[in-house]
């Protein structure tokens, strides 16, 4: 076990630093040492920053909406008097068990079919001149991917929140009801404070997962149109794994530099979040 981890988890980390220093097309042994040139090129490439911005837009739009929806749904389903809540839970969880790649394919089909269905009447009414092509429009591509992303992994957060809600002692609510607190007050004064700790972990996992978004974007838009929905991982993929015959820009060293930069950034964010979670836990104990 240790050797597998060392070989496939630890070694790549160290090796990736080495690769970033070469101009290398990925075939054979890297020979053209370029020092920090790759990092400078990444920092100067506006398309890297475009992908970088899109990654953060994806994360910071998706996470709050998804968590808010998941929490609301969890509060509704957590009601012990609600019959069939396990059936609802299964329904809302079901997209989670399918792959992002498949969801991406299905949603692209559905969106284009929906596009032609909706476009017809709108065109006849003279509201639009051409059929809507959601994924083909620079303005709508990223929002569409975000919407699908929210739909796809909402179930995880729903189940997390349900587990957290069920760990809140019922007596607390009963005591508050005796004191005359209404539902809204009970939510603000009991549910929110009691969820803070697990909530921080849920937020942490959601942010971490979203910053690594790859499958959905690659399958739904390929990062297009005109890089409008490109994220850092698809940017790296484009440089590292597009065969040199297709794209002259293929450069593994360059892609590694971008990956390394993003990896360090995500790790810093992770550590920051971890410290925040730990702080919340300690404050609770104190």
């Amino acid at each position, binding site marked *: 076990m*240790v050797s597998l981890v060392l070989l496939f988890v630890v070694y790549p980390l160290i090796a990736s630093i080495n690769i970033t220093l070469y101009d290398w097309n990925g075939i054979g042994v890297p020979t053209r040492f370029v020092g920090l040139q790759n990092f400078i090129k990444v920092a100067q490439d506006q398309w890297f920053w475009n992908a970088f911005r899109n990654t953060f837009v994806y994360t910071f739009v998706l996470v709050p909406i998804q968590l808010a929806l998941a929490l609301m749904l969890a509060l509704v389903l957590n009601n012990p008097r*609600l019959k069939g809540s396990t059936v609802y839970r299964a329904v809302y969880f079901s997209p989670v068990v399918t792959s992002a790649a498949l969801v991406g394919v299905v949603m692209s089909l*559905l969106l284009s079919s929906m596009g032609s269905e909706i476009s017809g009447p709108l065109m006849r009414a003279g509201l639009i001149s051409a059929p809507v092509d959601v994924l083909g429009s620079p303005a709508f591509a990223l929002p569409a991917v975000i919407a699908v992303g929210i739909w796809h992994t909402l179930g995880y957060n729903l189940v997390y929140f349900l587990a957290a809600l069920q760990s809140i002692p019922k007596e607390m609510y009963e005591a508050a009801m005796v004191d005359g607190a209404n539902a809204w007050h009970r939510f603000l004064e009991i549910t929110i404070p009691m969820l803070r700790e697990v909530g921080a972990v849920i937020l942490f996992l959601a942010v971490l997962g979203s910053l690594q978004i790859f499958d959905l974007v690659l399958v739904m838009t390929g990062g297009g149109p005109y890089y409008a929905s490109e994220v850092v991982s698809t940017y790296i993929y484009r440089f590292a794994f597009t065969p040199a015959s297709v794209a002259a820009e293929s450069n593994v060293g360059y892609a590694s530099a971008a990956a390394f930069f993003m990896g360090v950034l995500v790790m810093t964010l992770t550590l920051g979040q971890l410290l925040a979670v730990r702080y919340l836990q300690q404050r609770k104990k104190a």
Partner: protein
Amino acid sequence: MSASTIRALTGNREVPTQTCPRLSARWLVHAALIVAGVLYVYPFLWVLAGSFKTQGEFFRSGLSLLPKQLNLDNYVYAWEAGQFSTYFTNTVVLAVSVTALVILFASMAGYVLSKTNVSGKKIILGGMVALMFLPGGYTIIPIFDLVQRLGLLDSLVGVIVVQTAGALIFNTLLFMGYFSTISKEIEEAALIDGANLPTTYARVMLPMASPMVATVGLFQFMQNWNAFWIPLVFTIGNPSLRTLAVGMYAFVGENSTGWTYICAGAIMSILPIMALFFFLQRYFIEAVAGAVKS
């Protein structure tokens, strides 16, 4: 008047005024949940319907959920000409092997680490926790290079090894946590009866950890059935090694007009994992909920 009587009085006063609105409110909640639930799984139902439609019907019928007849041609095409039989086999091999390997390695490592007297335990644990929080996706290039040099590129073995290694840390920690909750007396009894460490692990401890085996197994199976990034990158040179997720992606590129075939392919990719989910629903959800707790 005591506090309890006040409670009883106010409680009593509330009941008659609130029963009526609450009852209709409950139906409203159900109605909303059902409508949202149908919309939620609509994409799957639509694809299922689409997989039975003919090409022409598919374009004419738009968003409708009812195919005119149960036409199975799309399945036959996707399975044979669309290579889905190969993709299916590859996916089963990948998911089953990784699941088995992860359970084996993670439980063995977790068992040893759960014992308090292992030398260097703190260092190993600290290293593992630190590694767990490294962003996985961004080390793909050196992993690719490594697998290439090991001669495992364009083989399922390469994909299996990389997927297994990536899952080990988290699951070892899960097993470690579980083993440390099992009472030490049973283990000691086995050791006194003359069983050595491997026998104790295999005959006593692993069977006792079966709930954790189920959790880890289910989660790993699902993750590997759906894996995309690693199988995609490691099978770029050999289309016959594609898994369902990768094959689906490639299929769309190659058959961008054969939508009904794509639907049939999608259903074949979803069906096994969805069936598993519906039969083992409770365990799936517990596995996920358990992951956040620990």
